């Protein structure tokens, strides 16, 4: 763009592993003065990991970070990044809820000290808030705890753009508009353009593709921990951007025994609309089907499952959030498995201990729970094995419908494959599954997929027409409307 662009940061061959999981592999990224870079990609593509490395909160396992043409060593951290003028607005807000707006400003700017720091900090933050978000209505004396989510986000953003004694060169914004309404989001985007035209640099991460396309100079697309495309924003449009994010090669191949259509006959087992649905779209589930609930994380899929769940209608629930929705922490593995089948274990009025033990050990073998003794406490198991116990609880019951709330979190790949097979086998025996998942690969096991966005069903896709691009397209339709 501008003739005198100066390089600020160069990342070369950066990789990051968490144990066996490779979150980033061989990433190159250059950031220069006077440009706004859009960073897009699916959940878990590595965007946030990359930005955490840039901001110094994570240390890369491989590669090199150059700031102002100087190579940084392993000791590169938040303090150094800050000195170099690199700031970050994280997705998880980083303000202290028990402090006021002024005090939170002081937390970031160590130079605001001595008599009257409160006055200086207050003036600094209120000026910045007024500049970016005119009419924000935030008092600098307010506790963060008393502010709304979007007001907190505004304070966080304004604080990141405020300048004291150190320079400010790059501001990273990770999903800044997700909690802002359209007007305020637009104010932010305008400020980003102003900041960039004055020679600053921004990295903008967002799922709102229109924002990225309209506000950024250059767009970097990530997938599976690598950069898969990098072009000027003018060379992208919505469709090509979505196409770049999803892998076209992995389109679903139809099985020979694909009998998905045949199950959609007769009367539906479940016929229900999400509470926030505006049109006539319904969630329909037929007996023996595996129905996927797709979309970005937290778009109302879990709420849909909770709304549907009713044990009287022969339903079981597999929790994704094990600790809060699934585990009974004082009980043994066996007790945790059999609690869902109590009524089958009754002999006259009393629970039969022998049948319970037999049921538990049957499922231990079937689903391969790694434990020497099922009478050990459930917390003695690893997270993945606890999850298996929860699967066993649901499958061992005689519930005809199983609701699954993104149940594969923290489960290793081998186990996943076993569980997929088990779900398919149970479905063939006439059980019905509703499966909320954020992973596209798991949707391939579904007979029918509903895509959720903002609490509504936005797409209704049969197995034969399903591909990653279509699901992404529907997930991101967001601000177009």
């Amino acid at each position, binding site marked *: 763009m501008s003739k005198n662009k100066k390089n600020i940061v160069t990342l070369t061959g950066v990789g990051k592993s968490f144990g066996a999981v490779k979150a980033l592999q061989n990433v190159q990224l250059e950031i220069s003065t006077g440009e706004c870079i859009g960073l897009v990609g699916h959940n878990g593509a590595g965007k946030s990991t990359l930005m955490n490395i840039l901001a110094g909160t994570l240390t890369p396992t491989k590669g090199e970070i150059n700031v102002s043409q100087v190579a940084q060593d392993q000791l590169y951290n938040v303090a150094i990044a800050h000195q170099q003028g690199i700031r970050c607005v994280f997705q998880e807000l980083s303000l202290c809820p028990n402090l006021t707006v002024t005090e939170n400003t002081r937390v970031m700017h160590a130079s605001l000290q001595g008599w009257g720091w409160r006055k200086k900090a207050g003036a600094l933050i209120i000026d910045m808030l007024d500049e970016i978000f005119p009419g924000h209505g935030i008092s600098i004396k307010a506790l963060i705890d008393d502010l709304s989510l979007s007001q907190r986000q505004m304070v966080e953003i304004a604080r990141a753009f405020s300048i004291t004694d150190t320079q400010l060169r790059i501001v990273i914004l990770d999903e800044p508009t997700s909690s802002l309404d359209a007007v305020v989001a637009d104010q932010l985007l305008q400020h980003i353009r102003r900041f960039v035209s004055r020679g600053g640099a921004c990295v903008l991460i967002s799922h709102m593709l229109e924002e990225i396309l309209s506000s950024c100079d250059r767009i970097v697309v990530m997938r599976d921990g690598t950069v898969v495309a990098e072009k000027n924003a003018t060379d992208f449009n919505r469709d090509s951007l979505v196409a770049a994010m999803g892998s076209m090669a992995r389109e679903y191949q139809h099985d020979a025994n694909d009998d998905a259509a045949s199950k959609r006959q007769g009367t539906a087992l479940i016929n229900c609309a999400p509470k926030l649905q505006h049109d006539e779209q319904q969630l329909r589930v037929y007996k023996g089907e595996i129905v996927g609930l797709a979309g970005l994380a937290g778009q109302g899929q879990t709420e849909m499952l909770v709304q549907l*769940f009713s*044990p009287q209608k022969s*339903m*079981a*629930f597999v*929790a994704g959030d094990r600790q*809060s*929705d*699934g*585990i*009974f*922490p*004082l*009980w043994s593995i066996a007790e945790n498995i059999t*609690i*869902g089948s*109590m*009524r089958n274990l*009754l002999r006259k*009025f*009393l*629970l039969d*201990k022998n049948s319970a033990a037999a049921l538990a050990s049957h499922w231990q073998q079937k689903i391969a729970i790694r434990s020497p003794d099922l009478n050990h406490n459930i917390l003695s198991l690893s997270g993945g094995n606890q999850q298996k116990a929860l699967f066993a*609880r649901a499958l061992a*019951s005689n*519930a005809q419908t199983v609701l699954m709330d993104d149940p594969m979190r923290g489960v290793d790949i081998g186990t996943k494959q076993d569980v997929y097979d088990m779900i398919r086998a149970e479905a063939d025996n006439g059980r019905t599954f509703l499966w909320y998942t954020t992973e596209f690969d798991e949707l391939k096991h579904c007979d029918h997929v509903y895509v959720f966005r903002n609490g509504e069903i936005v797409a209704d896709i049969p197995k034969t027409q399903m591909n990653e691009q279509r699901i992404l397209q529907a997930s991101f339709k967001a601000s177009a409307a």
Partner: protein
Amino acid sequence: MHSISSLFHHTLAKPWIWAFIGAFAVWLATIIFTGGQGAGQMLTAALSFATFSVIVGIGQMFVISLGPGNIDLSIPANITLAGVVSMKLMDSHNEMILLGLGAALLSGLAVGIFNYTLIRLLRIPPIIATMSSSFLILSTAIAYGRGLKIKPPAALAEFTTTHIYGVPLLAICIVVLAFILGVMLHRTVFGQSILAIGQNPRAAKFAGISVEYVRFCTYLLCALLASLCGYLLAGFSGGASLNMGTEYLLASIAVVVIGGTSVAGGFSNLPGIWGAALFMFLLVTMLNTFGLSAGLRLMLTGIIIVGVIILSTRSKQPS
């Protein structure tokens, strides 16, 4: 030798054993002080009085096991109402004994339904709901039994005070009742549901348990046991009085905690309630026998109770 020591360790690992050890130690200390005099009578008295703490303690235990925030403070008022109602109805006639029992239980049933209605429909926390309901219940008892001092039917008084070789008949009956309730806790859908809810109510809901129905039944059971206690206590002490339930507010909670039940919910300990009730009675007896001043007695009571609780929670952890 080895198996004996492992049996010993196994027994020590049971959290309820400490309440019994405490009760035994206190009893031993007392009879050493008196030179063996009154050892038997003391045990008989302990069993007689502990029985009433056990009845209400079991009910409180079920409620506390439902998890944080669950407690029934209306037990004393409930005891009084059941005592007053049944005594007035029976009017010292032997043939009315069963009818009186029925009336006592009915008043307990009404109290339980009323408590749960406050908790559920008006969304009042149990501690506030049961405390305020106890004022209403007590007022009802006062209005209903104004100025009355009716003797219990002779047969009921006889039943509640009879000993068989020094063991109170009533204590035997309540041991049987406690056993049945213990089986209910560990071997029925209802009992297991209580423990599941106490550990994690959200997970219990997703495991298919009707959480609110189980809570309702539990508060009802607690109220029924308290009214049973009121009926028997009025028979035992020669009639109902308006303050007959007062000491059972603290006693019902203390025996649950000392008995090794988890205050955080999800873990109940029924045998421990017997140990704790005996311990509480014998402790007071011992301090009285020593002839200590009132201040010192209260202080020692506090210290010893804390000591037993620490021992029993320590032994729970390794297992």
